[in-house]
């Protein structure tokens, strides 16, 4: 995915935690960091919304 950060920067990364069919443009996401082969990579997941079911 290509993520546009609030600061305006765009970043290529992976989106985790969704099935491919659930991925949509304009989906709010948040960053987390994942260790892959000893390297920490930025990854994204759907934004946690307090109070959401």
């Amino acid at each position, binding site marked *: 995915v290509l993520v546009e950060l609030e600061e305006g920067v765009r970043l290529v990364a992976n989106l985790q935690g969704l099935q*491919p069919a659930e991925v949509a443009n304009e989906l709010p996401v948040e960053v987390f960091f994942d260790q892959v082969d000893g390297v920490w990579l930025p990854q994204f997941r759907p934004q946690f919304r307090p109070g959401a079911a």
Partner: protein
Amino acid sequence: MHAVIAGIGQTEFSKNSGRSALQLAAEACRAAIADAGLTPEDIDGSVTFQQDQNDEYRVLGCLGIPELRFSTRTRGGGGGSCATVQHAAAAIESGHARAVLIWRAFNERSRHRFGQPQRRQPDPVWDFYLPFGLDTPAKIYALSFQRYMHRYGLTNADFGLYPVVARQYAATNPNAWFYKRPITLEDHQASRWIVEPLLRLLDCCQESDGGVAMVLVGAERGADLPNPPVRVAAACASHLQGGDELFSYYDRDLSEFPDGRAVARQLWDDSGYRPWDMDVAMIYENFSPIVFMMLEALGYCGPGEARDFIAAGNIGPHGAIPVNTNGGLLGEAYIHGMNNILEAVRQLRGTASNQVAGAARVLVSSGRSGLILDKP
């Protein structure tokens, strides 16, 4: 003084040439020099791609060219295909060379497949892409096409309108790999996903083996040579901040193609022509969505209108602006766009397989560079 394309040459386009890339380059060059009515001794300039594996000295040796007084290479991949003519024309117009040979030759199907993940030169820029799986041109481009598809509510079946037209042209071009093999939209929709939901197999250009070459000289000299000269009316390139060889992820609006728009603006300004002065348009298409975006960038239709423009038959045979009459890079072959320049020359000579009657002005677009060719 304007430069003219005096000679063109090529090898057959195949999936397994059975010989070295250098052999392909030499065969294409020899054919182009002969087509121009010149000898290797006449050649004093050369242009190829930065990516081309055939060293200039090896090519000189194969052909018997005694000396190059001008030698250069264009940036990047297919985006630089029209820029080869820009370099050659600049050399001729400035007096640095009198006869410039251009070539591009490779075995990108039988040897290192261009569409597969490749070993990249160590470059920090790839650290931002490779770890996330962006390792083939299809994946890299699909990510930016997504915005165009989303903004205008298109589906992959809409993009399929272009490959059907391309394969229709290829079907009647004996020079095309897909000669006599047209497809329907149903065939397109039945082809396998390469990058879901953007690109199916039939949206992707071919991987090909082959070589293409051209010879440029000054207009005065071109008038005395055996084949009708083709004038370089405009030759432009644009490399905008925020871009990269394969990426345009940082443009303000990803549904546009800013470099393509910048090239289009230069072409119309430099030549004095307007989009509808063109009889044929050759539009570089590594993947079918780029034709949609480039038709809009060139001014043939407004933003988001390319789908309906293509569906109405405008780019097909006898359409308002026939596009990629050789079958393009999907239908004929993928020699990084260079074969589309040869088709433009054939259209202007009146020798194309799918000849547009009376074609006098042809646009060639390769994204970040472009040409307008006409008759002197």
